[in-house]
């Protein structure tokens, strides 16, 4: 059974180069990828993730709003009783990584992360993939 990932853009950030490239790289690695488009809210992401029964949610954040929005996505999932892990990729300064982890984000990928690193991290988060 292949790993299912929802990739999402939350808030007002329209930079979608990274999310599209990562989505294709995950597909190349044999994963199923769902993309819900731009300008989503934490609630719409959580609802889509649960409905699509994905294994991981990946947020792409390049506008500096990650400390506000990523924890809201985590809590929108937990409030609905879901334990789907949330990972973040984008422009995230190193100092913010610990803060995001403390708020329940499972992993963070900054600029320059390779496809291999991202695939390995997702695989490690999904028990049935092993």
């Amino acid at each position, binding site marked *: 059974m292949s790993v299912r990932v929802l990739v999402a853009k939350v808030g*007002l950030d329209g930079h979608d180069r990274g999310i599209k490239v990562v989505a294709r790289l995950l597909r190349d690695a044999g994963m199923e990828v769902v993309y819900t488009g731009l300008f989503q809210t934490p609630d719409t992401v959580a609802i889509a993730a649960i409905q699509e029964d994905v294994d991981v949610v990946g947020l792409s954040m390049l506008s500096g709003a990650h400390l506000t*929005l990523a924890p809201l996505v985590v809590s929108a999932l937990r409030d609905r009783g879901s334990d789907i892990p949330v990972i973040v990729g984008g*422009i995230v300064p190193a100092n913010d990584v610990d803060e995001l982890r403390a708020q329940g984000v499972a992993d963070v990928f900054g600029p320059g992360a390779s496809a291999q690193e991202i695939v390995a991290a997702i695989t490690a988060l999904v028990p049935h993939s092993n």
Partner: protein
Amino acid sequence: MTIESSYERWRLEYSAATPRRERVTTMSGVPLEPVYGPPDAEFPGVYPYTRGIHASMYRSRLWTMRMFAGFGTARDTNERFRDIIGAGGTGLSTAFDMPTLLGIDSDDPMARGEVGRCGVAIDSLADMADLFDGIDLATITTSMTINSPAAVMLALFVANAEAHGVPRARLGGTLQNDILKEYQAQKEFIFPPRQSMRLVRDTMAFTAAEMPKWNSISVSGYHIREAGSTAAEELAFTLANGFAYVELAREAGLDVDAVAPRLSFFFNAHIDFFEEIAKYRAARRLWATWMRHHYGAVDERSWQLRFHTQTAGVSLTAQQPEVNLARTAIEALAGVLGGTQSLHTNSMDEALALPSQKAARLALRTQQVLAYETHVADVADPLGGSWFVEELTDEMERRAESLFAEIAEMGQGSMLEGCIKGIEDNWFQGHIADSAYELERAFNAGERIVVSVNAYTEGNEDDDLTLLRVTNEDEARQLVRLAHVRQTRDDDAVRDALARLSHDAADPTVNVMESLIGAARAEATVGEMMGAMVNVFGRYVEVPSL
């Protein structure tokens, strides 16, 4: 009848120019001509302008060192603007935050966490006044990098200047206002494409009639390239969008020579040095040829492609960020050798955050080294005649022409319709995403080396840059300012102004600019003005595609 050679025309033009220095030599005293080439060559300042739009190029005037800045509140950004000017910057460009770019106010629930984060928050006339407080708008030209709400921002700018006694006709500056590339690449759209184009038409008509020194659109390839396109796609899509705006103006009954001289362009300077230079040279030649022969422009200024350049944000690395100083310097050099009219150099810390004051100053210093130490500005188009650069220029031109043909086919002969169809069919978006994927594939396969990322990573652990932090307190300060505006303004005047705006927006034969300026004066907010137009125009929803 004798046909003047390019050289003879150049010599005539050059003799009318005022050089910055009388005698120009190399460091060792070798005298330098303003340009080199055999008598039968093409020369700068002469159609089709491959070698530059001015006969004297940087001999009479250096490029404008236009630094792009914006964060936090208007007061924070005003301080940074003054710092840039104090450090020798000669132009300004305003970066707006995401809520402003998407036409919502700082107190909108969707703005949470985004206020002042990647640009300055502008909610109303009061913010616009603070933004340019104490800056002489007559000597420092300003650019406003905004698209969907461009007409609203222009209205705020005009209302603010007029409140300070500067008539609109004297205002010089640039509105990015290039909505087509928003759907194609940057994705800061609000209204559907045709409704957006009506606002572009209104700003073009308004500035052509009332603001002769204002650039109505900065047709931008920068974001197309940053989103992942190739150099040839950046060139072709940008010029095609430019042709679309010319056709839009023509459909509105405006003369091509009334609008084309006020269109400017904005290109990326990426890391492939010679390809970028070839791209700029091909851009000038293509624009001149198309404006003259397809669109029948007769004013030479309509043929001359003027452009701003910004070094490539995507080429910057978060690892060993000081290396970005070298990348940016090389990219900036390509812009100068390619004959740019103005230049923004990125700061070394921009893969991590908005630039710190120190990093922004270093970026400006890079331009000053190029301008004053290296002598690269002494001779126009110094690479002209290089077999390699000339062939690469021709190849850029051929590739662009081939993409123009595809766009024209989508529009059944119309570039305007072709651009809109290409957006609606995800044609542009697909091209850009495919090219971005190919670059990333090559990177992951180790075919493309990025120093400090997939090679030469010793030193990646050092992390001693001091980054600019925009915090939730900055957001809170902006909310206080906005609440104050809402409390102190005349609510009846706001209601009336917004009603007039809704009325004018609903009638496509009316130009909305005057009612927008009226609403700006009444202290209506950006979100209220955009909201009134959303009610009339509707919202665009992109069909997600991977």
